[in-house]
């Protein structure tokens, strides 16, 4: 007696669970029972589960009978001729969809050649073990698994055509790659997934060599000529949004060019970009701190102002400016309403980004790197046929990481570029490397992909043969222009008087605990003090009671609130954080008495 559950609800019992499950499956394949139902027998709980709820994830498998796949060459032939389609195979009970529950009772073979009588299913293709992005990595079976993982991750960060309606969208922090290309070496799944509709990289000529040491430790060198020709150029979009807020008392913000009486009025020239409606005109070139929306807000503390002030309404200036460190061209200005019916203005800033030192690039094999130098085309090494690499990659990045697939892609890309076709790099089912080498040899090149190269500066022939070919490269979304940050002085926190945190607010760069240890280890005592001077203050200490005294700078009088004026009061320099510590100790009823002594 075995309990049977349908959609997690008990519906009855069966005597022989094995034959019940088998008959159920048989009937389902025949079409007697809906194909959307899955059945599983759990031997641990000795229960049969039938599931048909929506939202389960199911995957297709080829049914195997007596060690033979039900999908025959005949079917494949018909499929090719378009006589039957996928759904016909499902209908006929050749392919079935299996959910997680039923999967537990299945014995699935990855390859057809491995089939034996115990197998119940056959995988449609071994590449199914990968996810969408991993399946796009060419020759993934020739690389380390962890590198495949990383290669897959970088693809998600690459710039490309992220959405074809990008012109109408207001996405935050997106970029668009100019002239994206389809890869020379690609997986069969590239076409299946329609990647052509949103390509994400460009094919480059890549040479594996060092160049003046500027590509060590995962640095890459880029040919300036390639950049001039449009390699890895992208456009960065940033939206700004402004609401016309309503306040209590019927007052509200007003989007317009501010009047000169307004409190906090900048200068006339600061509003020069604004049109009559108080908004910038599109295609305006803007820089940091430029006003793009003129806005005024009602005064902050209304109550007392209106009664006593003669000038009835002094409004505040609250215009929106371009963020620090950003520039570009106003791409689009949209005026709409928000949910509350207030006026909403959204402005999209567009900025063209040429590759620069510090931008991140990656191949599809987990080989990511940062631009270390951009070299004039005249100084780039060239091959005997005059080919100059777009990108120079360090050979030291390969051995320890064992990304053979990276090297194969270069050979494949070279063959593809020479023969004018795309190379099939589908994992487990790719064009054999031996064939690629043979074809390369037939095209008149060395079969291992190396070529004689000449120093671009001196013209000397290089002793080593350089490995050079074509490969698909991705520009990743981590652009230096969005990350660069430095500060000399600026805003501080109210409580601690230390610099505020974060790039967006123009904050400081923290010299942390471990960095402090480094200073101490070097014995750079005075330098360390100088670094921590950001919150130094002068305080007056009563030498009698050892507590902080009061200084009246206006009358030049110094006194202790406890001991009066007739005591010695001394000025000392400490960090403001320590003053706070003293205050906190006092709040704990601990008396921190300072005993002063001359340092020298």
């Amino acid at each position, binding site marked *: 007696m075995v309990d049977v559950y349908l959609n997690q609800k008990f519906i009855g019992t069966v005597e022989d669970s094995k034959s019940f499950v088998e008959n159920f499956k048989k009937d389902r394949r025949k079409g007697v029972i809906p194909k959307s139902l899955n059945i599983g027998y759990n031997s641990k709980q000795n229960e049969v589960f039938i599931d048909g709820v929506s939202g389960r994830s199911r995957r297709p498998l080829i049914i195997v009978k007596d060690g033979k796949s039900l999908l025959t060459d005949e079917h494949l032939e018909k499929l090719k001729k378009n006589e039957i389609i996928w759904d016909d195979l499902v209908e006929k009970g050749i392919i079935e969809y299996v959910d997680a529950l039923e999967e537990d009772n299945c014995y699935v073979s990855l390859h057809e050649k491995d089939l034996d009588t115990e197998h119940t299913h056959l995988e449609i293709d071994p590449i199914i073990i990968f996810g969408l992005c991993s399946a796009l990595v060419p020759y993934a079976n020739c690389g380390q698994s962890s590198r495949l993982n990383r290669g897959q991750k970088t693809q998600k960060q690459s710039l490309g055509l992220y959405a074809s309606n990008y012109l109408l969208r207001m996405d935050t922090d997106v970029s668009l790659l100019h002239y994206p290309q389809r890869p020379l070496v690609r997986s069969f799944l590239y076409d299946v997934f329609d990647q052509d509709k949103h390509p994400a990289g460009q094919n480059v000529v890549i040479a594996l060599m060092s160049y003046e040491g500027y590509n060590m430790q995962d640095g890459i060198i880029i040919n300036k000529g390639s950049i001039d020709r449009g390699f890895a150029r992208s456009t960065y979009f940033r939206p700004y949004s402004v609401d016309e807020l309503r306040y209590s008392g019927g007052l509200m913000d007003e989007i317009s060019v501010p009047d000169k009486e307004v409190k906090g009025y900048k200068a006339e020239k600061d509003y020069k970009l604004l049109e009559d409606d108080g908004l910038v005109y599109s295609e305006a070139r803007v820089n940091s701190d430029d006003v793009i929306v003129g806005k005024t807000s009602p005064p902050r503390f209304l109550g007392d102002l209106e009664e006593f002030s003669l000038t009835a309404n002094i409004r505040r200036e609250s215009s929106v400016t371009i963020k620090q460190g950003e520039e570009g061209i106003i791409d689009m200005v949209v005026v709409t309403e928000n949910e509350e019916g207030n006026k909403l203005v959204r402005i999209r800033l567009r900025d063209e980004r040429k590759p620069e030192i510090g931008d991140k690039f990656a191949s599809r094999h987990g080989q990511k790197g940062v631009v270390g130098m951009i070299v004039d085309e005249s100084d780039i090494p060239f091959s005997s046929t005059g080919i100059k690499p777009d990108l120079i990659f360090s050979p030291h990045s390969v051995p320890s990481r064992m990304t053979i697939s990276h090297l194969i892609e270069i050979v494949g890309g070279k063959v593809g570029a020479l023969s004018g076709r795309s190379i099939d790099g589908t994992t487990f089912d790719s064009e054999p490397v031996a064939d690629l080498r043979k074809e390369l040899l037939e095209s008149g090149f060395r079969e291992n992909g190396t070529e004689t190269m000449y120093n671009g500066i001196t013209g000397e022939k290089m002793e080593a043969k350089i490995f050079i070919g074509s490969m698909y490269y991705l520009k990743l979304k981590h652009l230096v222009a969005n990350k660069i940050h430095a500060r000399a002085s600026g805003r501080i926190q109210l409580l601690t008087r230390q610099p505020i945190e974060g790039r967006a607010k123009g904050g400081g760069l923290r010299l942390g605990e471990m960095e402090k240890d480094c200073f101490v280890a070097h014995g750079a*005592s005075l330098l360390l003090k100088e670094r921590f001077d950001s919150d130094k203050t002068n305080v007056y200490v009563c030498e009698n009671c050892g507590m902080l005294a009061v200084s009246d700078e206006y009358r030049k009088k110094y006194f202790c609130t406890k001991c009066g004026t007739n005591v010695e009061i001394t000025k000392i320099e*400490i960090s403001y*954080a320590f003053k706070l510590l003293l205050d906190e100790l006092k709040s704990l009823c601990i008396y921190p008495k300072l005993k002063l002594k001359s340092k020298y």
Partner: protein
Amino acid sequence: MVKIPGKIADRAKKEIKKEKLSKKEIEKFNLELEKRYNDAKIDPGESIGIITAESFGEPSTQMTLNVFHFAGVAEVSVTVGLPRLIEIFDARKKPSTPMMEVYLKASHSNTVEKVRKIAALIKETKAEEFVTETSLDLVKMAIFIKLNKEKFKEVGMNVKSFVEKLNTSLKTVVIKELKDNSLVLRSSKQLTIQELYKLKEKIKGVLVVGVKNITQVLPIKKGNEFIIMCAGTNLKDVSKIEGVDMTRTISNDFFEIADVLGIEAARAAIIDEASKVIEQQGLDIDIRHILLVADVMTNNGRVQGITRTGITGEKESVLARASFETPIKHLINASLVGEEDKLNSVIENVMLNQPVPTGTGLPGLLAKMKEKSDKK
């Protein structure tokens, strides 16, 4: 002239004699020796403590990344890597895997049989293991025990001495030996049934052979002699076993070493254990850093860890202690006794934003004012 320490001076003298140097050469040699000796000394104000801390800290970040575990190896499991290093520096009272390497005197370690015998003597064996069956006779208030003959053979013990062992640890029990390899035990006192049952359990736990706390023994060949690896440590009792070479036998519990062999031995043990961990991880930390830590941990005569209850808790400065762990506790306790902070070390001065007294912050300026001479 700087005083050269004895060991170096002695060696220098020997070399001078050996090379038969002339007087001029000796003078030159001494100058060079002095110069090199001075060069090798640590400069005043060098932050050796923090350099040691960084020297351990930086490589140990890599240690966690490559954790090797010897799955399936039929050896006793030992804590290694970062957990062990933390255990050493924190000076935990008991190591998580106490181990002992027992060396044997040459006369006892030449054959495998002899070594096995000693190993069997070391392993903690309770009466339970000599017994196949126990039963209670509630009418006669007696305990019947059936003995395991093979176990007696294995250890090389007779029933008589077994009975003696039981008698010495359970004084109230009267034991009678029966013919069919079994014993009858009766108490000299009147017992309730519960007490009888308790007595039975007590008998099971009597230590018959071996050293307390040694749960496992494993004779292995090291070089060209046999040593016995033990899980669990007990240096004191192992030393009483014949054939054990106490000059070389070591334990990884340095509190025990400090108790049995003294603080200098404990210091050496800390150095050994720490270097072992570092070596196993394939790292390279200068021995002087380990020496410094071991010195600091043992310099007041007992083993102290680098914790708030150990040496960090003995720091002179209140602020320095408060900045390490449990600040409020330290501040309040300091205020109760009116402690004074002299601001003599690094952390307090960082807190106050004053130059720290190491490196360039150490030297002060002493200006000698010349008195004006009235003669002119």
